[in-house]
């Protein structure tokens, strides 16, 4: 099953490689990984999307917790939570395609953030499914470039992780 694991990590050089190294050394899957500092500059928040059997997920959580740089860890999957990912996508847009693309961007609540005579660059956020659906909707359009931020997540309600 797919799990989203949120980690608060010492903002130290090498901390990221400890996490990434753990996943490769133990042959765990990483679907996506995103990391950036938080409001406390000594801490980074990392979100990892991974898949595995219940036993493997349990081991992933335990092994991550064992890393000395990991301050706190939460498997968000069981809780009600919000997932978001940012995608920037550059597509061919000439003649009739321009209206068609614009219409799709509106439907998906994205925005066009850069324009040339022949291309649009689009920004869109949402959960992974929404971004995938948007790319599918663009199937008749030629996609030049896709950048995705990797998923981040936060729990719903007044509960705060930190």
């Amino acid at each position: 099953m797919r799990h989203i694991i949120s980690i608060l990590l010492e903002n130290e050089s090498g901390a990221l490689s400890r996490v990434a190294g753990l996943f490769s050394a133990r042959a765990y899957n990483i679907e996506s990984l995103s990391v950036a500092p938080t409001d406390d500059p000594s801490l980074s928040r990392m979100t990892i999307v991974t898949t595995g059997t219940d036993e493997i997920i349990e081991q992933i959580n335990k092994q991550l917790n064992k890393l000395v740089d990991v301050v706190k860890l939460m498997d968000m999957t069981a809780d009600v939570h919000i997932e978001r990912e940012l995608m920037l996508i550059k597509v061919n847009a000439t003649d009739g395609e321009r209206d068609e693309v614009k219409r799709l961007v509106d439907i998906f609540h994205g925005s066009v953030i850069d324009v040339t005579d022949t291309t649009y660059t689009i920004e869109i956020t949402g959960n992974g499914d929404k971004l995938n659906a948007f790319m599918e909707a663009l199937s008749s359009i030629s996609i030049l470039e896709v950048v995705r931020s990797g998923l981040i997540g936060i729990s719903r309600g007044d509960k705060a992780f930190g």
Partner: protein
Amino acid sequence: MELTGADIVIQSLKAEGVEFVFGYPGGAVLHIYDAFYKQEDVQHILVRHEQGATHAADGYARATGKAGVVLVTSGPGATNAVTGIATAYMDSIPMVVITGQVPKHLIGNDAFQEVDSVGITRPVVKHNFLIEDVKDIATTFKKAFYIATTGRPGPVVIDIPKDVTAERCEFNYPSEIKMRSYNPTVKGHIGQIKRATELLVSAERPMVYTGGGVILGDAAEQLTTLTRKLGYPITNTLMGLGAYPANDRQFVGMLGMHGTYEANMGMHQCDVLLAVGARFDDRVTGNLEKFCPDAKIIHIDVDPSSISKNVKVDIPIVGHVAQVLDNFLKVLDETGMEPNTSALEKWWAQIEEWRSQDCLKYDSASELIKPQYVIEQLHELTKGDAFVTSDVGQHQMWAAQYYGFNKPRRWINSGGLGTMGFGMPAAIGVQLAYPDETVVCITGEASIQMCIQELSTCKQYGLPIKVICLNNGYMGMVRQWQEFFYEKRYAMSYFDALPDFVALTESYGHSGIQITRPADVRGALEEALARKDELVFLDFITDKTENVYPMIPAGAGLNEMILV
């Protein structure tokens, strides 16, 4: 007063109560060596190869429970140390390894003798540090020793650029350290302990299975008290030998690939298994699908990630083994719960029947020296109380099977990584820690050659180690597998250019004896042990074809042993 970074390194070691640093100099650590020269508090032991330094520190740590300390230079010094760091990591041995690094402004430049030591060692350390500021040295050392020795212990590497050791600052060694991201104090859950005790006493066919965690956690006493009180059979893993006295009737021997018939059958048929400080390693469990099919399992370990990693357990207890076992005893006392004695009587009758198979018997009438006989004689002469280090191979298994360890921390071997070359340098660390005790290195003619240069270190420091080489002219364990599983195609497992070990030892300034007849075995051992002040190398020419039995082939269950 301001000190240089190099002096701060020494002062930090002193503050940690470090007696010995095992090391080898080089450019990046010369400031630190200069600081060593000017003091007498911490003794530096000069090895002949950095691998030797790590194994010596490791042996010291296993025998004493204190962190072993290593100092090596950058680049090749650090890479040579990696095998020893990994060896310590796999067996959870507390160690602090200081590696020199090129000056900060050259890092990342492919400078002379630069390697990314933090990157290379990352997968084989509990944690590692790169110190970038002289002001961080003292706290980093405090953290390193704290991390290495608490919780599930392990090696910690501290990488220090050369320029940092020349800079100056005030020295203040922290008396305490707190880390928000590392909190190793875990107390066993008392509710779980009660449930576990109830299950334990309800057992009809109980088994106690204990590993290196009992040794590392200094819980042998609690384990022995509890096991005696319950009257249950107990088996130890390779790493756990000595946690329970081998000469006690309740001890059924080692389990696993080369475990005894009674231990493995007992595991296979038990209905309640108490696993303490053990990690269900593949060499212990055999085929997981056939492992302990009828058992409810209680597992005590300080490391939550060891629990339900390979085998799903019924009652997990995370905590320090000594404290948890104390609580078991307390619960038993308070509730007056008692084991099921009539069931236990039947179970013991079954175990005695297995035991009567005498699975460790061997041809004692042979004209050739049987390696098992050498170990048995050594056991008799040292009463099972010597410190015994070993290398890796058949000799290691025979030492484990036939020596009979009665005390913890006496059996010093590389179980997890299985590192040939470990035995000799490990013995150096043990002998330095216990100068008046008998320290024996049981080795093979292949393994000993992997770190034989350390005979020179033994000469320099006058270490009277007894080397017992079971010389079968083969990489015996490899030969055994080739005999069993590769139709006797002995690819590369035979040496036809062995050195004359007696002459070799003599050239290092020690003495050696070659023994070729069974009748001379005991006398040679007696003579070597009597020479209290010198290293003696005993080269026993043993039966080339002897195999280690019992053996569980890959993929088989614990009840599917190959017997003699």
